[in-house]
């Protein structure tokens, strides 16, 4: 298996901590779940360490659907990370 390309998008203070609203990344083999993806991102630089310093807080969505950390990335094209929502 080869690396896969994913679009990552960030919102609110997760976006501010990562320092960009979105990016395309080539994810290596072995990154199968959302939790794997977070772990891999944290190895890439301190801005990710900062954004995900409290992993239980940051929420994720895969292709516009809320998911839990153990969710498989499957055929995902877009993964979003954001704080708990405060709309309404």
């Amino acid at each position, binding site marked *: 298996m080869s690396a896969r390309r994913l679009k990552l*998008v960030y*919102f*609110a*203070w997760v976006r501010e901590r990562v320092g960009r609203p979105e990016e395309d990344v080539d994810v290596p083999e072995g990154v199968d779940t959302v939790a794997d993806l977070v772990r891999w991102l944290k190895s890439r630089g301190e801005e990710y360490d900062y954004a995900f310093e409290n992993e239980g807080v940051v929420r994720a*969505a895969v292709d*516009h*659907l*809320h998911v839990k950390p153990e969710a498989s990335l499957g055929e995902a094209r877009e993964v*979003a990370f*954001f*704080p*708990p*929502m*405060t*709309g*309404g």
Partner: protein
Amino acid sequence: MTPTIRIQADDFSAADEIAALGQGRADIGAVVTFTGLCRDEGGRLAALELEHYPGMAEAELGRVADEAARRWPLHGLTVIHRYGRIPPGANIVLVATASAHRIAAFEAASFLMDYLKTRAPFWKREHLADGTVGGWVAATAADDERAAGWG
């Protein structure tokens, strides 16, 4: 029944949405509306800024609306959520439900707001009266509990 879902920067008119729900129908006995507005928090705020996740916001509100329509016999359902900078006193969100009976209309509107608060990808940031940008509003555990209470 097809829910009306809109994500927009512009203001909305609760009156127009109520009228649209009931138009030309004689089987609606109850219409409930919830309007959420920006408070100034005792003069502390100049505005709230609402960030959202385009695409997912529409999709998630659609899923929440479909769930409400599955649980209650609704004749009409409208959800409108604004984004951008919203001054005190201005509208943020509208939920309107129409049904033959009042209990369904009340419960569905309350459910929609509880679910929307914890599932719709919107984030509020404070702009302070002194001109500075304040912090992101924190989510409350109470909102999570209310949403979970619907099972």
